[in-house]
């Protein structure tokens, strides 16, 4: 998680600098404030890079001081330049989200075929969003903020 957090931090800084250059507070936030990221519940094993876009979103949400809607869950590795890369466990993750009342799921575009293979009863009540770039994730989380 350490490495994905570092990548997320670098990308979040670049993202804010690029899209929020007029918002001095948002731009300065990650550069000047010390951050603490915590992944609660030690019982669940969570190594692997699949939280990349989620960590990035947490940092961006913090810097803009905007909460993220709680009916959205996401998974996807992030590259240093904000590309969203494939992850594993699509079926397990989808079932967990449905069980917990999540409505919108954000998955990497590269996992679209895995979702297509899932039986319909698992996907009931969920809407899927497939993304290639981090900015796509941002638009789903904060539809009222123009990039």
């Amino acid at each position: 998680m350490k490495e994905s957090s570092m990548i997320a931090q670098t990308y979040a800084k670049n993202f804010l600098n690029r899209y929020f250059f007029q918002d001095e507070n948002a731009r300065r936030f990650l550069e000047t404030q010390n951050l603490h990221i915590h992944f609660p519940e030690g019982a669940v094993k969570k190594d692997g890079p699949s939280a990349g876009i989620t960590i990035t979103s947490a940092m961006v949400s913090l810097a803009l001081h905007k909460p993220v809607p709680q009916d959205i869950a996401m998974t996807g590795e992030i590259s240093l330049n904000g590309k969203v890369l494939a992850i594993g466990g699509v079926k397990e993750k989808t079932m967990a989200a449905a069980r917990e009342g999540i409505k919108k799921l954000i998955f990497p575009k590269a996992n679209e075929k895995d979702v297509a293979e899932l039986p319909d009863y698992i996907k009931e009540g969920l809407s899927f969003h497939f993304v290639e770039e981090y900015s796509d994730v941002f638009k789903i989380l904060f539809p009222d903020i123009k990039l």
Partner: protein
Amino acid sequence: MRSLKKFTNRIAEKIAFQIVENSEHPEPVKVDVINIEKYIGHPLYRSNKFYGVLPPPGVVIALAYNDYGGSILYIESTKSSHISEGRGELKVTG
């Protein structure tokens, strides 16, 4: 599926016992979401959604999986310096 059978049996056994105990006036038994805990005990899995509908900024829901299945998990982030400005450092736990 093996556990489903086990739990269904457990419900049936408890009801059978109940009927035998009240054999004078057996009453129909209805098992539903509300009283099922009486028969099979507390739920094995509790929801791990511990933030309400509007958490503070910096909290986002991630998805994880392992050999036993998937789960949602929160990622929490806060700033960790107040008195003096920090230097954009990062601390990671959990």
